[in-house]
């Protein structure tokens, strides 16, 4: 058949969106640099003892605010604890909050967005309006209100509970952004002929939503999510700095910056090191997010 011959020339290996995006990513130095940095930070978060043997909680008050030296590279903080050890150990809180909040936000936002698009009608109205209300709240103010209401009430809360609360707050305030993206991506194909064809074959709601709508939603949500990690990491630091997020004895960059804030003129290094780590982490995630967006975007139309 003549039609058939017309296209034999194209490659025989099946190629989809993800293959193309991967090819694109592979060729970008930015992608490799940010990936290596992120892996380093993840390693730091998972196994801090690989980087330092010093216990971040051991305090020697007599050596309060000692300058960096060969023994203590980043110096000692006000209570005489090793700043290098505390900075290394601080990676865990940032990475956990950033990744967990992103994961939960994209899952919940993605699911609600697809549901809104698929169900339409009052369910769509409800989800969309609720999202608009939450987005109308200034982010930091909203987080402060929620965290002081829930976390403030229980000052004895353990680190795990506080981290969960922070993740929950970030998720609650951010899912509408993901839901909006997921909804419009799902809505754009909801009436596509191939979805009609699946319905005509007898496909149920789950198959339609997860087999046909979800793949279309994946790319934009992944792009958005990869940029969101950086936002959440800085939001965690901001909230901890303001004293409503994580707090001592949890070791975190935000907590360290907050504690050092009062002595910024006497001991600048106390602020400088955790801030530098925070900035590099955020930057690494922003770069990775950008690279992923550039690789996926041309196919997002």
């Amino acid at each position, binding site marked *: 058949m003549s*039609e*058939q011959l017309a*296209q034999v020339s194209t490659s025989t290996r099946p*190629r989809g969106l993800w293959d193309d995006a991967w090819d694109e990513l592979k060729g970008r130095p930015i992608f490799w640099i940010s990936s290596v940095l992120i892996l380093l930070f993840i390693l730091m978060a998972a196994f801090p003892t690989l980087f330092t043997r010093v216990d971040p909680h051991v305090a020697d008050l007599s050596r309060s605010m000692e300058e960096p030296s060969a023994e203590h590279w980043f110096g000692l903080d006000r209570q005489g604890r090793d700043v290098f050890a505390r900075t290394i150990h601080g990676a865990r809180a940032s990475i956990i909050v950033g990744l967990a909040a992103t994961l939960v936000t994209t899952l919940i936002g993605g699911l609600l967005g697809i549901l809104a698009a698929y169900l339409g009608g009052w369910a769509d109205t409800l989800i969309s309006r609720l999202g608009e209300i939450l987005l109308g709240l200034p982010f930091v103010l909203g987080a402060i209100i929620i965290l002081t209401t829930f976390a403030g009430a229980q000052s004895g809360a353990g680190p795990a509970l506080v981290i969960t609360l922070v993740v929950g707050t970030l998720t609650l305030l951010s899912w509408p952004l993901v839901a909006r993206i997921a909804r419009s991506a799902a809505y754009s194909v909801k009436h596509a002929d191939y979805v*009609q*064809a699946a319905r005509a*074959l*007898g496909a149920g709601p789950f198959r339609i939503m997860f*087999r046909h709508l979800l793949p279309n939603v994946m790319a934009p949500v992944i792009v958005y999510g990869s940029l969101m990690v950086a936002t959440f990491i800085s939001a965690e630091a901001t909230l901890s700095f303001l004293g409503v997020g994580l707090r001592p004895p949890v070791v975190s960059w935000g907590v360290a910056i907050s504690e050092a804030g009062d002595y910024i003129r006497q001991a600048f290094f106390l602020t400088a090191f955790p801030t530098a780590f925070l900035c590099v982490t955020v930057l690494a995630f922003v770069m990775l997010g950008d690279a992923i967006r550039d690789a996926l975007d041309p196919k997002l139309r």
Partner: protein
Amino acid sequence: MTQSGERGPAPSAEPVLEVRDLVKHYPITRGILFQRSYGAVQAVDGVSFDLRPGETLGVVGESGSGKSTLAKMLIGLEGPTSGSIKVHGKDITELDRRGAKRMRRDIQMIFQDPYTSLNPRMTVGDIICEPFEIHGDVLPSSERRGRAQELLEVVGLNPEHINRYPHQFSGGQRQRIGIARALALRPSILVCDEPVSALDVSIQAQVINLLIKLQKEFGLAYVFIAHDLSVVRHISDRVSVMYLGRFVESGTDTEIYDHASHPYSQALLSAVPNPTPVGRESRQRILLSGDVPSPADPPSGCRFRTRCWKAEEICSTDDPELTVRPGSDHPSACHFAEGPLEVGGPR
């Protein structure tokens, strides 16, 4: 050109599809919280027909005449406002969930646009196997890919291309993939909604010939929708002409093409180029004046009267029924149904 008579089904066979007084009105509403109805778009308004095994009914009408709405109701994608659709004697509008799913094995659809009817993120194999996944009891999973490859072969594609994505195929090939998917559950009826109008003219005939071949091979019955009469002639046993949600004339191939009695059919026919210059009376081209009225506010009486050159008083007061009238041999919804003799131009 194949004569339809050769392909025609045994007239005695029980119809596989019986459609009676099918109506679809889309309410026009305003307001978000308190929806109020402001009339309705009468997309389909009283359509009836029978379809026998192996038979093809061509449905022809301009854009907006309600063809796609009719097709969607036939395959159960839209619920009718009223009327009945019986597939193998069972009314599909009264089926429960399981019954409705079972019914989908009997009636399938081929879509107009081969570029939007295949999920771009699925391989051809996944697309053709989807019917088997949905109806898991039809075929054990180990046999599905093999069956998908057989189906590719049946529709004239290379079975080795099973792992490719839709964008690696041409329009005609994509339409063949859509046909393979529609055939997977071995339906007895295929609804084809303008299956070739998005394709190059050179490819159209190939796809139509494939459909004719498949019809013979599997005894399929087709409802074949098109917006111009020349496309359906080759494949149809009977043709119905649709205007503003209604069938205005129905008949066999010859009854419509040589003895059209409704002014609208005559106008459509006059736009079809003569296939053979000799042996057919030369037709004068009839140009219709005016636009198709809105289906939300169709004209009183005969719906065609605003564009009809033969309209008289009675046309605006009495709605002409689709029946056989004296002087003609097939149903036509015109008070002045006539043979082809005096096809006059518009005044």
